């Protein structure tokens, strides 16, 4: 097997579009998302899986992109905060966060929103306990947790209304 400190080619779907990238073997997904793809919504804060600011959705699951090597996502699909709004319209989760006042300094918000997205995709009508469990790995140092939890409830209601209308 050939070993190399050279960049490695990967193919990855980012927010719905296929990308061919050359990534260094020691770069994390978070670094590549920010520095190579220029998607700065994903934040790097603790860099060790404690704070959740770098949360993205990888093949349908919320993960800390600071603890995933970029080379490991070859062939995978990634959703970042930039992939939520469609045609200039915010996603219902984003609207709910704004309306419920769940954004203070905003640094944790992309991670909170992505954890919420992963939760609601799997569990459209979560109990409060399930919301707390899904967001336990996302820290908000403005401590706006109550409003964030309210926003998740509100987002679930909005998405339910949207899908009813679509029917």
């Amino acid at each position, binding site marked *: *097997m050939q070993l190399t400190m050279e960049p490695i080619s990967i193919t990855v779907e980012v927010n719905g579009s296929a990308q061919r990238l050359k990534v260094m073997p*020691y770069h*994390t997904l978070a670094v590549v998302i920010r520095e190579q793809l220029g998607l700065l919504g994903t934040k790097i804060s603790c860099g*060790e*899986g*404690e704070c*959740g600011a770098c949360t993205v959705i990888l093949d349908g699951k919320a993960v*800390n992109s600071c603890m*995933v*090597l970029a080379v490991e996502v070859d062939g995978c699909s990634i959703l970042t905060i930039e992939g939520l709004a469609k045609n200039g319209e915010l996603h219902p989760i984003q609207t709910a966060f704004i309306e419920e006042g769940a954004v203070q300094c905003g640094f944790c918000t992309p991670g909170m929103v992505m954890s919420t997205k992963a939760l609601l995709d799997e569990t459209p009508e979560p109990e409060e306990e399930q919301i707390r469990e899904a967001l336990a790995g996302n820290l908000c140092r403005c401590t706006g947790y109550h409003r964030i939890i309210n926003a998740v409830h509100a987002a679930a209601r909005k998405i339910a209304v949207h899908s009813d209308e679509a029917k």
Partner: protein
Amino acid sequence: MKRFTYAEPKNLAEVVSLIRQYGASASILAGGTDLINHISHGKLSPEIVVSLRSVAELSKTVAENSEGLEIGALATLTTVAEHPLVRQRYTALAEAAVKVGSKQIRNRGTVVGNVCNASPAADTVTALLLFDPVLCILGEGGRRKVALSEFLLGPGQTTLAAAELVENIFLPTPIKPTASTYLKLSRREGVDLATVGVATSVDLSGNVRIALGAVGPKAFRAFSAELQLKGAPRDAARLERAIRLAQDAANPISDLRASSEYRCEMVGVLLRQALQQAMARCEREEGRCS
């Protein structure tokens, strides 16, 4: 982060040849939730990271066979926590797996990785000890099987050699229907290591098993306390003696999470609660148990 090269072997033979070639300067990557931190903190500085993600023979799932349950090397904590048979037959393990880290960590981190990391506070290790787990280890000389209790040596220490990897963990089907529970005491509910972890099981004949985590250099079974309760898990006087025996078996350190004395006290509190829960579950599921 320190620089390293990366390899993604497609089969076990390639993995073994790589880790044999690089020895201690190779690190095996499964979920990465411990490894990436160890590298970025400088605790490990591998020349090469060998990813297991494309190894055809390694399983991402939990598989049942006639003798028991096999947890694949790549089965995540989420996969194990949500598996119906784990929840039903090895309840304490499901409860422990869901208490590790955060959702994001459980979606990447593996049970086998949690075991290999050999933290004295590893939730899944404490729970697994109830179920006679056997690790299947692959090395250049072939396969060997080792009981989890013998695999663990101390904090971060196992009998795994540099050129070996764990292929799976096997849990034999309990001889008698068993109800179990895992209780974790931590400073906050989410994303914290166990200050004390207690796993207990009770079976149809009143056989009790007790495993303690974060109160010694490795998680362990409290055999003398188990013996005290054998056949009479509801006997109040025996329970008090068993709690004292479990506390005597614990040898916790004092650290930022708690003092040694506090941990010993909490072994008693948690053991009492865990036994009550396991027995209540046993009674509720009369068809399966008691």
